């Protein structure tokens, strides 16, 4: 009896010791969807790379990374997301939190993380409010950092920078001084600011806005909208689409042989599966993106190739969980601690060269926007391939193409 008890106690002590050797990182994402898959894939790559190299050195003690896969189901349910983050903090005892996608869900998860003073590195949501919280109540929200993407206002800056480049090409190739632009934005909160900015900025950029069309984010049929856009003679369809309507727009533009070219945000268009989902009709559709085999940073091409080799597809921006973990390792090793407050101070000062961007944070813990650093890239679908074309000065970029007229 005593012997069994002693063995049990020893096993418990060993288990406790083993547990203390790991740093637990919860990866939060909608795991049944592409966003969550990429969250997890990026994190797996970072974990394997770090653990294989001996783990993270915390003040001379080597600690392995243990990932906790937390399915937030946030695309369908915000309460599911808050339940997931509660669970990883209270039951799984996660040390750090990384991920999130849908802004509404991330705002709710941010509250839970801040209640528990856990560092939460966002890897998906763009809403400005997330950073605004840090600015307005620093002591509570300082544990939040948005690793990717840039906030919504900065996304607009990138969109207009690329738009200017496309408009110039249209002026040259189509001999028109004032390219016509149709605004096609899903009806959602995140598009309202972009629409206002487009209506104000495009005329100043010598472009004519021929109209605004706002289908539902889940619309499966946009033939009426596209008929009207065709009739308006638009050269560019400025898309602001995050839902499956992005596939419908691309496919139906192709089926109608439209001469206008689509540029903007088309979240579905960032995925490898897009060409197949649009039944091969998405020729010349272009969108903002993060990853391609171009030299955004010295680490971009090796990461993209390794990701493609392991997962047989291109990473989406959510795979920046990889960078978030690598950055975390860097600050933990530098500070020799897992203490959240000390790590926050270190992250605020860091300049981290990631795989898709060179990251520094502002006082809202948002990315500091800069072309060639955090603004991302623009890609266009050409014959089934996602071809990067902007920023033009980055090595590996290819020409943007217009539909034949």
């Amino acid at each position: 009896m005593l012997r069994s008890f002693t063995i049990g106690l020893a096993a418990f002590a060993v288990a406790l010791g083993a547990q203390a050797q790991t740093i637990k990182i919860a990866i939060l994402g909608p795991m049944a969807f592409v966003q969550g898959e990429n969250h997890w894939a990026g994190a797996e790559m970072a974990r394997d790379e770090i653990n294989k190299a001996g783990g993270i050195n915390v003040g001379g003690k080597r600690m392995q990374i243990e990932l906790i896969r937390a399915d937030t189901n946030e695309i369908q349910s915000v309460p599911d997301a808050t339940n997931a983050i509660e669970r990883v903090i209270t039951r799984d005892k996660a040390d750090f939190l990384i991920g999130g996608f849908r802004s509404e869900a991330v705002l709710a998860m941010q509250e839970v993380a801040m209640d528990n003073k856990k560092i939460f590195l966002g890897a998906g949501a763009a809403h400005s409010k997330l950073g605004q919280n840090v600015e307005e109540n620093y002591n509570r929200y300082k544990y939040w950092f948005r690793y990717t993407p840039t906030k919504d206002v900065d996304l607009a800056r990138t969109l207009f920078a690329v738009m200017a480049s496309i408009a110039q090409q249209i002026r040259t190739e189509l001999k028109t001084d004032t390219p016509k632009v149709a605004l096609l934005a899903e009806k959602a909160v995140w598009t309202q600011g972009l629409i206002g900015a487009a209506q104000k900025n495009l005329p100043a950029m010598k472009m004519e806005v021929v109209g605004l069309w706002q289908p539902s984010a889940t619309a499966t049929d946009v033939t009426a909208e596209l008929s009207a856009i065709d009739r308006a003679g638009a050269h560019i369809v400025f898309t602001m689409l995050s839902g499956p309507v992005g596939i419908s727009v691309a496919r139906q533009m192709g089926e109608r042989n439209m001469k206008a070219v689509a540029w903007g945000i088309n979240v579905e268009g960032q995925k490898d599966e897009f060409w197949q989902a649009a039944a091969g009709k998405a020729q010349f559709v272009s969108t903002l993106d993060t990853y391609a085999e171009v030299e955004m940073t010295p680490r971009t091409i090796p990461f993209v190739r390794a990701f493609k080799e392991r997962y047989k597809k291109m990473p989406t921006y959510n795979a920046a969980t990889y960078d978030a973990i690598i950055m975390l390792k860097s600050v933990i090793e530098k500070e020799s601690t897992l203490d959240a407050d000390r790590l926050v101070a270190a992250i605020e000062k860091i300049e981290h060269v990631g795989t898709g961007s060179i990251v520094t944070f502002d006082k809202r813990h948002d990315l500091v926007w800069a072309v060639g650093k955090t603004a991302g890239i623009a890609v266009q679908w050409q014959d089934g391939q996602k071809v990067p074309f902007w920023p033009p000065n980055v090595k590996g970029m290819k020409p943007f193409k217009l539909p034949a007229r």
Partner: protein
Amino acid sequence: MLQDILVTGLVNGGVYALLAIGFSLIFGVARIVNIAHTAFYMLAAYCFYTLLVKTGLGFLLSGVIAVGAVTLFSVICYRLVIEPVREHEAAVLIATIALALIFQELMLFTFGGHFLGIPSTLEGAVRFLGVSIPYQRLLILVVAGVSLAAVWFVLYRTRLGLAIRATANDLEVANLMGMNVHRVAMATVAISVALAAVAGVVVAPVFVVDPFMWLAPLVTMLAIVVLGGLGSLKGSLIGALIIGYVEAITVFAVPAGAYLKGAVALMIMVAVLLVRPEGLFGVAFEEER
């Protein structure tokens, strides 16, 4: 703009009609409130996708197998889930909602939340009145017409159709007259779901296949069936065209309010019901009793 509205409304109305015919049959004629109707449409689309894209079977074979398999599956679901509670309309409603959600979660588990595309059966487009119409949409119009004719033929020119109409009219009397009302109901479910499956196979190539694709058409179908009149196939067709045209007019007249097209269509339905509570071509409720 007028020709755009005329052509777009007709094509979209055809898509809706194809979806509404089966819904109208089961909802109006058999008095089964099958909320899972469009979930069967989703299952057929997934089945078609798997056979066509993953296993490489041809369009025709994939389509026939998908329709057959989903129809057979619907009969099994009817026997196991709907028939035991058929006497209680509220229970049927809840049971079919549960079925639809189970199908949704099963597809989510199996295929993930990815949006899948199916190649068009017919490639290319034709210009009519200056409007470009893909051949696939014309195919939908043709299939909708043929389906409507086939359903009309079954209902009004066959003994099975007579039995379905009699059972729908008065279940107890039909039972007393020696009809096997359970088999008739099962046959109605099979015909209805077969139509939904045909819709899934033909319409899926112009839409996107995903686990939630059954929700939006469900609302539109309810609006069309109620607008056209419960149990009236003619009403479903006219209702589908009305909704198709209302949506087209909304998009062309108020481009920035394109997302409102569904709401405007539902408002038209409510307006019609205020004037004719039985719908455009429905039988007055008082007469039914």
